[in-house]
């Protein structure tokens, strides 16, 4: 690739090039050092801590695989949090894709005020998580919330939403769908990238809107969908703020998600080693899942013309 250039440099830099190299490195040094000290070191250190019992002030106490063993074989709450996380992921991700894609297709239609609609649907994305969580707490309020009031008008007795253990996770999923704006924008960009001449050809051949969606739009959008699914998966493993603000894991552990339990172990129970082990298990799980998604989707994803 760039080897000829490199070889040339190695053979002998002119004084000017050497000066450039030096000042270039110097200018980049803060970023490089920052990355090494504040990112690389903590990440590597957390591998070590995951094999210890560590409560911050005392030196870490080497325990070998104990943290991993306890997590996998002796901590039912670990599996509860894993289940909760997967539950939220399995529903949030496909629904987000469908909703974001639907919105993107609607907003791709050329009508008056198109940019205003786009702004409106994107708007929830820029509301900070803490603020939107507090807002949704009120929307979900079973007695005074707008959701149950609306349901009451159409004759439905609404559930307890976030305060009912069997409705708490669905409530979070509904709330997540409210924030699909950023995926909608990415899909919208993808839609505008699909070749218009193919649509015109399809129309000439008498294709219905449904056929155009299934045979034209979806194949062209598949790389975007794959991309968003993977990022959503990672995002859901880190799902924390909403739960922390709204339920703190309750009611009855229904919303105790993985990142929440990790945080509790680290900062409430002073089990930094245990929490580090959880973080690495999460990392391994996401890498595996990403790999599986890539493998299983390879034939279904269409990269224009390949």
């Amino acid at each position: 690739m760039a080897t000829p250039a490199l070889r040339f440099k190695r053979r002998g830099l002119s004084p000017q090039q050497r000066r450039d190299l030096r000042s270039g490195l110097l200018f980049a040094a803060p970023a490089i050092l920052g990355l090494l000290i504040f990112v690389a070191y903590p990440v590597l250190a957390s591998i070590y801590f995951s094999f210890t019992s560590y409560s911050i002030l005392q030196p870490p106490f080497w325990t070998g695989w104990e943290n991993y063993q306890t997590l996998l074989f002796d901590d039912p709450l670990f599996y509860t949090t894993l289940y909760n996380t997967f539950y939220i992921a399995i529903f949030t991700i496909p629904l987000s894709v469908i909703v974001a894609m639907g919105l993107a297709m609607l907003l791709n239609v050329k009508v008056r005020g198109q940019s205003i609609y786009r702004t409106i649907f994107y708007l929830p994305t820029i509301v900070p998580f803490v603020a939107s969580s507090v807002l949704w707490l009120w929307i979900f309020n079973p007695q005074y919330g707008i959701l149950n009031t609306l349901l009451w008008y159409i004759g439905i007795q609404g559930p307890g939403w976030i305060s009912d253990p069997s409705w708490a996770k669905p409530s979070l999923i509904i709330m997540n769908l409210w924030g699909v704006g950023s995926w909608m924008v990415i899909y919208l960009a993808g839609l505008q990238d699909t070749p218009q001449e193919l649509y015109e050809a399809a129309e000439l051949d008498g294709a219905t809107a449904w056929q155009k969606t299934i045979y034209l739009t979806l194949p062209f959008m598949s790389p975007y969908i794959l991309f968003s699914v993977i990022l959503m998966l990672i995002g859901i493993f880190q799902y924390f703020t909403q739960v922390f603000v709204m339920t703190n894991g309750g009611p009855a552990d229904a919303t105790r998600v993985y990142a929440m339990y990790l945080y509790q172990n680290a900062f409430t129970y002073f089990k930094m080693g245990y929490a580090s082990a959880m973080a690495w298990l999460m990392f391994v799980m996401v890498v595996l899942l990403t790999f599986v998604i890539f493998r299983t989707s390879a034939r279904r994803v269409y990269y224009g013309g390949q």
Partner: protein
Amino acid sequence: MQEQSRKPLSRRTFLKTLSTAIGGTAFLPLLAACQGTPPPGGGAQAPSGGPTATVLRAEAGAVEPTPAPRQAAAGRSTVIEVWYPYGGADAPLYEEYWKAFEDENPDIGVNAVYAANDLSTNAKLFTAIAGGKPPDVTWVDGPQVAEWAARGALEALDDRIAAAGIKPENYWSPSWNQTVYEGKVWSLTYGSDPNFGFFWNKDVFVDAGLDPEKPPKTVEEMDEYDTIIAKVDGNRIERLGFIPWTVYGAANSLFTWGWCFGGEFYEPDSRKITANHPNVVKALEWMTAYAKKHDPTKISGFQAGFGSGTQHPFFQGKTAMAPFGPWELSALKRYAPNLQYGIDFLPTGPDGAPPKSSWVGGWTVGIPKGSRNLDAAFEFVRWISTSDTATMIAGKTFNQFPGYRNSPYYNEVQNNPQLKAFYDILVETKHQRPVMPAQAFYTGELARAVDAAIFGQKTPKEALDEATVNTQKELDRILREGIS
């Protein structure tokens, strides 16, 4: 084919690389977080069911801007840094302490920094200690003392306490007990919260046809009153007698009713967790029966419209009975000036449970490990815990009963019927939360047990057995690893 091979970068490779790269980097902060920096969004709000009753007062102030740090008066030879836990409306009140201390100690200046201190924000203090820049003095919540001492976050104070002539009998005994772990004293109690006074709303009693001057004397009576007071309109609860698990969070509720029913939570000599003590189980069974009576999701829906502290439904006449601490007196005066209420001992539990049950909560003040001004720091700790000036400020400005029994504030209390009611409770108090290093974990487990039982996912016995086993395992691990 030719076409394709000439493409410099395919979309596929691009998206693949991008998602892998983003996927990788997205993890870095999380892994890094385990190093001691809370992830973004952390510490935004105190989790409910925290270990302290008083933490909940902080929640009300959580939306207020963080108070600016206070600078010590000029020309002091020693300056100590003090971290205090309450912002919001309370923050300006602390100035009275700093000023009074500086007036009485002309050599010592006080730099005061607001640092929220509860379950979710311990990390700040621990990071400061680990980084070698701890404050000289910090507020320590009662149940945190053993937890922090065992993890090396506090300086032992025994020698200085002896030299200052401070004796255990100068304090309310549960307040002293909570500062002693492994035979050493780690902090001095600043406030003793008599937990709790039983408040009842006289207007609601009249409205429901009850005698407003006769609070329930037993838990059974309280249940009967609830049946009379409760107003349920279809699926909507309009008013309840009380809600047993809203005594400053689920864990504190179980402590309150568990002791009220004659239970015990910890056996200090054998270091055994006893959350499944038959009487604690009985208390949780009673709470669960109450939940079934009104439907737990309906109650939590009702509850969700309110909150803790000044948002508590009692303030709006939506519940008629509630256990409260003395700090609610000023809140009631401010936010519900027309509410007519009485204060009494908690009702007595069933089957020969001891009457007049209560426990002591409240803050202590200690010295973080690594303080560089131990003498001046201890002078402040001694002063705020025992001096007439400071204990009077605690009482008059903060509605905080001093831990120090000899405080002149206790003379004043005798003339105020409301405060006298709390004083009488404090005199009778025998309990403090378990003094052991897995206290935060225990609190979390108790809260989970209460939740699981009232929502019918486990029987009270199962839930408390599980909490006992889990906490015992955690405590044994901490003790085994010899972290002390």
